[in-house]
């Protein structure tokens, strides 16, 4: 395998398309991960078609009651709040994906921007930005997010933000995003440092392209495969983080969240285990899906190293 790589023409641009395709072709974990992620995505999109209930519909309270066993009306039964468990699971998929994608959108943009500047500029800029990133790399994110969620919910009282739907959830997404950029920045910087010395970049520079052009059309696309791996990992991480925050009771009361389902139901685990086990299982497979996908992508991005 080593010899094969050695034979690549150093001036030629590395292939950058078909990362997903290669991931699916070559990596078993990638295939399983992709399957799981697709499952969650499909559930998120079509889930609502599969259930006659609206989310947060507590009508079961007036009929079969809370913590009811599965029946024709409620396939997985109802939970302690009188919600149809299946409905909550289906709608929870949307929240999970929105949290994952939203947070990563923020952390991805910030990370690539900061890492890119640090890697391309080098020198003092690099030093300062990376020290800054280092701090974010190690800071205990929960501690901060819990404090900010509480502080903000008190601070916005009486302002326009308060009327914003899903304000709490938005804050959580923002915070997870803002605290997740550092690994991406570090990876981007590393890739930029490496790629900037490669010959095709040198060639482009000699060809008279401007700095911005080089970054956008030469360096960034080639750094992307490695970044994508991290992004997939971070989606899983963000979903997990939101679940934990909700589990501690700091979630958004208006959103349907698996973590919040667990928060309300785990005390009655002995009465009706389904209500806690089902959302826990959903979080698990979603996060697992993204982690496996990241693993597969990493295999595809660096065929030589095979898993980092």
């Amino acid at each position, binding site marked *: 395998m080593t010899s094969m790589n050695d034979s690549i023409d150093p001036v030629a641009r590395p292939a950058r398309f078909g990362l997903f395709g290669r991931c699916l072709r070559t990596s078993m974990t990638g295939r399983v991960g992709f399957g799981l992620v697709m499952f969650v995505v499909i559930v998120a999109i079509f889930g609502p078609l599969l259930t006659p209930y609206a989310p947060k519909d507590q009508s079961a309270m007036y009929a079969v009651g809370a913590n009811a066993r599965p029946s024709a009306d409620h396939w997985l039964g109802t939970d302690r709040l009188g919600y149809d468990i299946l409905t909550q699971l289906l709608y929870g998929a949307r929240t999970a994906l929105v949290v994952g994608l939203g947070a990563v959108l923020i952390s991805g943009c910030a990370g690539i921007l900061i890492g890119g500047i640090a890697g391309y500029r080098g020198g003092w800029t690099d030093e300062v930005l990376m020290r800054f990133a280092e701090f974010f790399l190690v800071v205990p994110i929960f501690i901060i997010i819990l404090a900010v969620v509480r502080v903000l919910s008190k601070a916005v009282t009486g302002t326009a933000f308060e009327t914003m739907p899903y304000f709490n959830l938005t804050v959580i997404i923002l915070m997870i995003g803002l605290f997740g950029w550092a690994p991406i920045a570090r990876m981007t910087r590393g890739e930029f440092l490496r790629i900037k010395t490669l010959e095709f970049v040198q060639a482009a520079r000699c060809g008279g392209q401007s700095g911005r052009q080089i970054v956008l059309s030469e360096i960034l696309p080639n750094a992307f495969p490695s970044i994508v791996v991290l992004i997939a990992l971070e989606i899983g991480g963000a979903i997990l983080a939101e*679940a934990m925050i909700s589990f501690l009771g700091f979630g958004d009361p208006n959103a349907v969240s698996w973590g919040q389902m667990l928060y309300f139901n785990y005390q009655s685990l002995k009465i009706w285990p389904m209500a806690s086990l089902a959302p826990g299982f959903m*979080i*698990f497979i979603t996060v697992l899906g993204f982690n496996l996908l990241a693993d597969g992508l990493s295999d595809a991005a660096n065929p030589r190293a095979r898993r980092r």
Partner: protein
Amino acid sequence: METGRYILRRLIYAAIMMLCTSAVIFFLINSLGNPVELMLAETPGVSQETVDLISAQYGLDKPLIQRYFIWIGDLLRLDFGTSITYNLPVGGMIWSWGLHSMQIQIPAIILSVAVAICAGTWAARRQHSRQDFTVMGTVLLGQSMPAFFLGIILIYIFSFVLGWFPSYGAISTRRLLWGSALFDGLWHMVLPVAMISMFNIATLTLLVRTNMIDTLRQDFIRTARASGLKEGEIIRRHALRMVMLPVITYVGLLLGLMLGTSPVTETVFTWPGLGALYVMAIQQLDYPLIMGISIVIAVMLILMTTLTDILYALIDPRVRLE
């Protein structure tokens, strides 16, 4: 000489970082309002004059900036103030609850390192084999398992169904296991330690395996092999030493984080640790307690990362040239 300069630079970074963090914590929390008003809110019949009087007693009538420096001064004398909800000195509370956090975190870290080194090495030596695949699969499952879900399952199986381990608290109130506080404490630690270890083991195994694979490819290992040393010997004598460097960094990070990383574990097991105390403090908006815990966690973290960096530089002088 150069090592000395590097250490000095690292220390200066650490000091700057601590100053910034303390400012962020102080101004963020104090933007919430007057803690005395909150403290007396439940007491009807308190006039504004009384509130002002008590505020002055707490030094809250001074400008924010001045209070920040007073607070820093108090911190340097290890005076963290008094909790509003529990009326106890915050320093004492952090110490007592923090010890309980360490009581589960340190064994969990030791256990994780031990298991991860064995599993990681074992998998690395059998790269791409079925065993390697099993280890890696388990690692990925472990990394994806939400900690609280794992905790709930552990409680359900081992505490509720089987009844082997207690599901809450750090020690029995009255009937100690076999009449010994030590055994009783260990008995209570089993489930929380298992829960914390799970995630650490997964991450560390991955780290050990990756680095072991890299190391085993290197020239000096080939040389050692050529000289006829047994594979086990090579790994123990040469490869492990290289692998330990990133492991030390990660363990340093874990040690730095240990006070603040487990609010979930501690909530699930109602373990009287600092993470659980922090969640309570936030729920009740107990300002001095929130600030005290945050600053202790931040300082621990900065100290530990600085320390590992310095240690690392001393062990392997190449890194500082990175």
